[in-house]
């Protein structure tokens, strides 16, 4: 039902990983690769958080700050009574993409650390945090279910 959303869900994450692996082929400049991958990761974070989660699996998580400055993390889940066959496939693609990519970035983290190419470390850490944030948010939505799914975190 949402082929464009599915495409974009995988496109930004996949391009970020591909660019990181093959950056030497594309360009000699470290800065160009760094900025490109960072932009791809940011677009991926935004689109997965705001668009593809909402459309593919009906989940949404966000941060809301009320009048007295308290921040709430809100996790919403749409009640799905019937699951059509096409949206099953989309949901599977969504979750697979969501889970596999942080794992890949963690592998990159260790490979960067042990090969001592430390200038890439900042980027890999940024990638891990952005993708893990989405993963954590959506798992929280999924596990929230019908019970109270909104909680106040006083620290963050």
């Amino acid at each position: 039902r949402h082929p464009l959303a599915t495409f974009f869900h995988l496109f930004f994450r996949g391009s970020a990983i591909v660019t990181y692996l093959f950056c030497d082929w594309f360009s000699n400049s470290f800065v160009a690769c760094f900025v490109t991958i960072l932009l791809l990761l940011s677009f991926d974070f935004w689109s997965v958080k705001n668009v593809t989660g909402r459309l593919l699996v009906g989940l949404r998580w966000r941060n809301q700050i009320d009048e007295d400055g308290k921040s709430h993390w809100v996790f919403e889940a749409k009640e799905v009574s019937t699951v059509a066959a096409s949206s099953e496939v989309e949901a599977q693609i969504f979750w697979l993409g969501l889970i596999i990519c942080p794992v890949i970035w963690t592998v990159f983290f260790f490979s960067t650390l042990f090969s001592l190419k430390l200038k890439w470390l900042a980027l890999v850490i940024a990638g891990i945090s952005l993708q893990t944030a989405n993963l954590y948010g959506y798992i929280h939505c999924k596990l929230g279910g019908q019970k109270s799914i909104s909680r106040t975190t006083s620290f963050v």
Partner: protein
Amino acid sequence: FADLADMSLSGDITVEGEITVPVGAPSPDEDFSTLDEPVRETIMRDLKAVGKKFVHVMYPKKSSTLLRDWDLWGPLVLCVSLALMLQGGSADSKEDGGPQFAEVFVIIWFGAVVITLNSKLLGGTISFFQSLCVLGYCVLPLTVAMLVCRLVLLAGAGTISFVVRLLVVLAMFAWSTLASTAFLADSQPPNRKALVVYPIFLFYFVISWMILTFTPQ
């Protein structure tokens, strides 16, 4: 109503409980029929929010609505542009400016995180990401200073150019610090304001130092 006026509550009252959000609540996408329309609206809404914040940094007045709607796009854009402009400015830049670029990135983000942690530990009421947002957006005057410095350096690198750059950087540094303290210091109890302002001062000082000591090779 004199009696009601006397019924003031002093002290903090802790309220605990749970809030249940009904799962059947209408989700935001049920009104939209096409895929493109909501995405474009979401993008425009976010872009407008980012633009509004940039304007707010240039004319800082305390506004709680600005703080509530945080985002990190502005800080990202500013950080990338500042890092791009600060490339190749150190004495031993034989490489392609890689380490300096990552260094600027790390300094800005790590510095902002440390300041945020500091203000949280001092008992501030502002949230983690709000504080990162404000600190990031208030780098805007310094980015403008960097731009001006690069233009001045195109004209020459003598004493006059140094004085001009010094004045510009000082002015923008003061602007950044004042803008961020206008937003952040209010969330602290009054006897701790100095403890919060000092790390912010130091943070922007380090960035201003990097800008002022930049000499292109």
